[in-house]
Structure formats: C-alpha cells, structure tokens
C-alpha cells in the first residue's frame, strides 16, 4: 500500500507544479485566442484557435529582428567569455598565478556587482567607443558579468582534475596549451557545456544593459522589443502573448531538453564547497 500512497503523492506534486506553470500556460493559450475573445473571460477555453497573433508579430513587429539580435549577442557573449575565461581558469587551477588569491576574490566578488552601478560608466565607454546600438556593445557589457562567472566555475571544475594527469602529459612532452586542450578541456567538457548554457541564458534574458545601449531595431534584443512592444490605441494582448512565447523558446528548450546540464551548472555555483 505504501507504493500506492507514494504514487498519489508523486501525482499530487506534479499537479501542483502544473498549476505552478499556469501563468506561462495561460499566456500560451492567450497567444492562440481570437482577438474578439481575449477580454471575454470566462469561458477560459476559446471557441477556435488562431495563428493570427503570430502572423502579426512576424510580419509587423520588431520581434524577428530582435530574435536574430538576441541569438547573435547570446552566442558571441558565450564564445567570448569562454575563450577568455577557460585559459584563465586553467592557470588559476593548475599554475602558480601571481596574486591568485586576490584575483579569485575579485572574480567572485564581481559576480555580485549590481548592473545598475556599472551601467553608467559602461554607457560612457560605449559612447566614447562609438558602439551604441551595436551587437559589440551588448557582447562587451554582458561579458562584464559572464566572464567572472565562467572563470569562477571553470576554475572549480579544473581543480578537480588530478595533478598526476598534467604531470603525465608534461612527461609526454606536451606543452601547457597542449595539456589544456588534450587533458583539461575534454575532462571538464560537461562542466563547460553547463557553464556555456547558463551564460547563453543570462545573455538571452539580460534587460538593463540591452535597454540602455540599444536605440533601434538594429541591435534591440528580445526582452527590449517585448518591453517596448507597441500598442497604438489599445494594448495588443494577443500579440504580446505571442511575442512572449517566442521570447521563451530558448529557456523552454533548455529546461526541457538540456535540463541535466542546466541543473549541474546551477548547483556547481553553491554546493561544491
């Protein structure tokens, strides 16, 4: 009988979590509702489902371009942070880096810096470099929080690799870059995948920098386009719902399809003390 009770408890938890997702699921349903039925609730379920809101978003809004911008900025931020962060983490984990202690403290502390404090100096930097309203501005600004995050977690992962392996590689005549590429990188690949995934997600979701450093469709990312979604006379709730769902595609894919890597990356930040 215990097993039946356990099953009931499991199902109860799943039902609760399905209810917990209702704010999102309700938006999914809204995005398929005919315009005329949006403000008529109840009934909860519409008489027909329509793709017209998605049509409007794809043909008459800034979202298609914003999706491209977000994808580009997310991928480039992740690539930049990993390209700079992984060698630094390798050195911090395996070599005697001068002032390694203060450096690591600075890296960890900077993951806590509030964006609202660094946004005004960064704004002046972007203006001076003529980067306002470009992908480059967003990639550099996002790297300011992505790079410390990558260094912090990758240093942790690389410290777990036994010293004997690097020594063996050195005896085989491998240089330090060679050791990084053929020993440390393959062994920390799952960790790196998690870190890259989270970095991409942070960049995809980032709003404050993107809102500040962009001015036109040329560089506006998805959160900015969604925040500025235009309504001429009345709020286009159906179109906004469709745009929200499009903005949620990568997070949903990550949570459903790449859950293992997401969870590993999240927990690495706190549980391996």
């Amino acid at each position, binding site marked *: 009988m215990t097993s039946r009770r356990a*099953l009931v*408890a*499991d199902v109860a*938890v*799943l039902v*609760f*979590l*399905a209810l*917990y*997702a*209702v*704010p*999102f699921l*309700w938006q999914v349903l*809204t995005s398929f509702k005919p315009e005329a039925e949006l*403000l008529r*609730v*109840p009934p909860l379920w519409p008489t027909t489902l329509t793709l017209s809101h998605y049509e409007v978003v794809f043909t008459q809004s800034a979202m298609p371009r914003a999706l491209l911008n977000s994808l580009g900025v997310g991928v480039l931020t992740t690539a930049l942070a990993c390209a*700079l*962060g992984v*060698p630094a983490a*390798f*050195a*911090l984990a395996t*070599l*005697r*880096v001068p002032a390694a202690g203060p450096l690591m403290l*600075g*890296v960890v502390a900077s993951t*806590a*810096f*509030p*964006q*609202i*404090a*660094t*946004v005004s*100096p960064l*704004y*002046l930097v972007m203006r001076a470099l003529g980067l306002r309203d470009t992908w480059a501005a967003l990639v550099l600004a996002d*790297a*300011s929080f992505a*790079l410390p995050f990558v*260094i912090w977690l990758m240093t942790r992962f690389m410290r777990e690799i036994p010293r004997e392996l690097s020594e063996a590689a050195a005896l085989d005549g491998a240089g330090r870059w060679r050791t990084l590429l053929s020993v440390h990188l393959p062994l920390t690949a799952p960790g790196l995948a998690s870190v890259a995934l989270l970095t991409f997600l942070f960049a995809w979701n980032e*709003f*404050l920098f993107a809102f500040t450093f962009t001015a036109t469709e040329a560089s506006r990312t998805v*959160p900015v386009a*969604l*925040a500025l979604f235009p309504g001429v006379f009345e709020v286009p709730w159906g179109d906004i719902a469709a745009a*929200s769902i499009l903005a949620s595609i990568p*997070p*949903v894919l*990550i*949570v459903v399809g790449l*859950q293992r890597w*997401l*969870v590993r990356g*999240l*927990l690495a930040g706190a*549980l391996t003390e």
Partner: protein
Amino acid sequence: MTARERAERRAAIGFVAPAVVTLAALTAGPALWVFWLSLRQRVPVFGIDHFAGIAHYAFLATDPRFWSAFRVTAVFTVASVALELLLGLGLALALRGQRVGRRAALALLLLAWALPGVVTARLFEWLYHPAAGLVNVALGVALNWLGDPALALPALVLADVWRTMPFVALFCHARLLTIPAAVYEAAAVDGAGRAATFRFVTLPLLAPVLLVTLLFRTLDALRAFDLMFVLTGGGPAGLTETLTVYAYRSLFQTLRLGFGSAIGVIVFVLVMAVAAAYLSVLRRREAAA
C-alpha cells in the same frame, strides 16, 4: 626563484592576462569609476561636467523619493526572499520522494526561473488585468492589482516569488538527495517523530544550503530591475519604485549621470554589505564547527 618557476609564472600570466585585462576594463574599472562619477555633476546633453563633492549624497539624505525607494526595496527584498525560502523549502521536501515524472517535475519547476524577467512581467501584467485577468476570474473579484496603492507591491512580490522560488527549491532538493537514508533510519530507531526528525536531522543538514540561497536571493532581490520596471514602472504614484528603478530613471530619463550614479553606488554598497555579513556568518560557523 628557479628558472622553472619563473617560466611557470610567465606562462601563468600569459593565460590569465586576456581575462584580467578584460575584467579590468569592463567590470573592475566601471565598479570604481561609478564612485568617481557619483561625486560629479554630469549632464551630457547640456555639456555639464564638474566636481560636485558629496552634494548628491547630501541631497539623497533628505530626499523623500529616495527614502520611499529605499523602503520599497527593503520590503520587496525581505518579503520576497522570506516567501521564496519557505515555499522553496516546502516544495523541496515534497519533491524528496518523487519517483514518477521527476524530469517533468523539474522542467515545470525550472521554467518559471529560466524565463526572461520581461516575459514574467508580461505574464503577470496579463494575469492581473482588471477585466480579463485570470487572478480576478479565479478569485471572483474585480481588483485593479497593479493600480491599487495597497495591492501593487504585494502583486509585484508575488510575481518575483513565482519567478525565483524554483531556484531555492532546486538547491534544497539537491541537498536533500545527498542525505543518506541511514541517517533517517537511525533517527527512526531512536524514536524520533516526523517533526523531531525535521527539526534535528533535516534542518541542520540543510542549513548551509539555506544560507547560501539566502545570500544569492538577497543579492538578486536588491539588484532586481527588469520585473518592476516593466510590470509596474514604479507605479502607482511611485509606490513600487525601487532604488534600481529610481537610479535608472535619474540616469537615462532625466539624464543626470552623476546623480543617478550616486543611487547606483548606494545599491552597490548595500549588496557588498550583505555579502560581507554572509561571509562573517560563514566564518563564525566554521570557527564553531
């Protein structure tokens, strides 16, 4: 220092240099520069740029809007972090024995956390709609959640709890999975009931995780911006305006870079104070252990 050590040092510097230079330019530099900016009167559109000393801070000390934003930030942080920890802990305990649909459960749970803050703001704006919002329909009331001075801040807190409780639940859940069954068997042999087991076995083992999530969540709540900026815009009548929203408005809507930076510095100091307090608690715990 031997030749080999010198070579290792040189190599190490080569590996960290690109990252260090980038961090200096994009993270450490701006973090220091903002303190200097906060001491200047700087309004780029009018070409104003001169030293102002502590004038901005002196103004803020008696600025009712600043103290209102300070209070809103404090209430928002305390209320949402407390609720998240309680609900997250409860859900983690409920998830402990989950055998059926564990992946689906985690996906449903983490979805709310993984969405962009702006999407969350849009979801709740629609849920709180006075005429067609699901909240009013479900409760059978006709409240203007985001427009009512008494309801706007609780409505904002609720949206934030929805978004971040999964983070707490996941951390507690992961820690619970690592507690060996033998610990609970021993407690049962000793005749400990459910309440006693929770109080004397589970809770102490969860304490370090609760402490670290408390830190992460407090820092994030103090820094939060996107949710309130899009959901309420600080309204009605400034009643949900946090320090971050006030800073943003000053920086980029009234274009007073020096003044806005001063508010940013205050958020910065608050965040660092919380982190320092956490470190000292951690050190005391380690010394006691």
